[in-house]
């Protein structure tokens, strides 16, 4: 009699715990939909494979969210896009979570013989940059202005919609040079050479992240953002080449 009761108890406990864990597993297994700037492709994907991502130029993502795209989180490479959505109450208050810097990349074969940013003015070059509405495109124009190289914009042969299209064209050798984030040079380091840009010429690059107001998973979204802001998340970003959150915004 006692063994039968014990057996029933054990079965009951096992059943209850497996139900609870499967319910928990269902909650955890449901991925969040994260719309993130293209430059975050590698770091976000490897930081958390379980979520669902859409990577594109931050301006395109802003337009999509504004038109009702089903995102839970929006991570932008420039405050402009998150702040505009915040002003329309489409996202919760954005938070700065990382920074970056620009570099000039050229194909390994260096067909135009570019060794410094100033060579861009001196030599014929097929330069590829992002469009002005894309964060990296706006940052590029700021860098060129600070360097006194705005005339180099006449050598642009294509304006891309995100930074990966720029790095792709340079990596393949189709373009002579392109401006990308330092973090985008890494995945293509075998195919490109990196030319650094002095710190004084760098624009103030700040990445912001926010919970989308329409999201039905706000608690989970806030928790994910907390993970990105935690030492673990920040370490993952630093390891990928991103810069620490600028002091003024902490």
């Amino acid at each position: 009699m006692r063994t039968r009761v014990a057996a029933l108890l054990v079965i009951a406990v096992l059943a209850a715990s497996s139900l609870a864990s499967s319910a928990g597993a269902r909650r955890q297994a449901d991925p969040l939909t994260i719309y993130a700037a293209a430059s975050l492709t590698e770091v976000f994907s490897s930081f958390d494979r379980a979520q669902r991502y859409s990577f594109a130029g931050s301006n395109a993502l802003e337009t999509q969210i504004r038109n009702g795209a089903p995102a839970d989180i929006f991570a932008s490479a420039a405050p402009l896009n998150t702040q505009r959505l915040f002003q329309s109450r489409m996202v919760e208050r954005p938070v700065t979570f990382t920074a970056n810097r620009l570099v000039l990349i050229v194909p390994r074969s260096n067909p135009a013989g570019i060794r410094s940013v100033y060579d861009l003015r001196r030599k014929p070059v097929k330069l590829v940059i992002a469009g002005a509405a894309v964060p990296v495109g706006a940052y590029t124009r700021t860098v060129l202005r600070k360097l006194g190289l705005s005339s180099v914009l006449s050598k642009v042969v294509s304006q891309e919609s995100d930074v990966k299209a720029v790095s792709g064209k340079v990596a393949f050798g189709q373009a002579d040079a392109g401006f990308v984030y330092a973090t985008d040079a890494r995945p293509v380091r075998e195919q490109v050479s990196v030319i650094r840009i002095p710190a004084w010429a760098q624009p103030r690059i700040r990445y912001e992240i926010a919970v989308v107001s329409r999201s039905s998973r706000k608690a989970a979204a806030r928790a994910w953002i907390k993970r990105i802001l935690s030492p673990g998340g920040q370490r993952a970003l630093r390891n990928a080449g991103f810069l620490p959150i600028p002091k003024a915004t902490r």
Partner: protein
Amino acid sequence: MPVGDLWSALGSRAALDAIRVTAETIALAMAMILLFGTPAAYWIASRRGAMRDVVVTLVELPLVLPPAVAGIGLLVAFGRAGLLGGTVDALGIDIAFTKVAVVLAVTFVASPFYLRTAVAAFESVDATLPAAARTLGAGPGRVFFRVMLPLARGGLGAGAALAFARGLGEFGATIMFAGSLQGVTQTLSLAIYEQFDLDFNVALAISALLIVVSAVVLLSVKLMTRWHSASGSLILSAPSSRQPS
């Protein structure tokens, strides 16, 4: 959105540049497709066997390729670091990021549409007619220009219209191979993509223009398939070698 606003949005610099780039590139692409595609279709239509099957497969390949893959294919073939890149450079020709690149991309994706219909058009011509022309002493050139072309012109016209429509809407291969620069390589489709979050009215106006053009193209296809009884039901049915005489 009021039609007046759409019309003035079409007058914006971005829209006008896109219209000009598209008009120039599609005209050149169609010229190449018709010039090289018509004899090629005639050759395919007059053959049977394994060689024809291989050629047909090659020709129809761009049809099933996703445009982005077509873009990569063009880069691999004609890109500066591609298979023919060195040859192209040696000839002093510059393709990268030029209108030539747009023309190549559009030609590549649109040509199968013309070729398939053209082959079917030539095959549906009653074989006794060119044969009769030859027994009457006409050489192959005369047979082609005076007998085959006129008889197949309905189908050829419909094929050209389809290729035109496909070329007009080309996006993926163009943006990968030719890039996007206003006034140089930015076609109407690429302009919609850029204007979408810059000035939505311009994007809307360009889309409206493309809808109107597509409707006109569709109408002309319908009209052309009725143009000549020999090519009456080309588009929808399999090629037949016999016509009621």
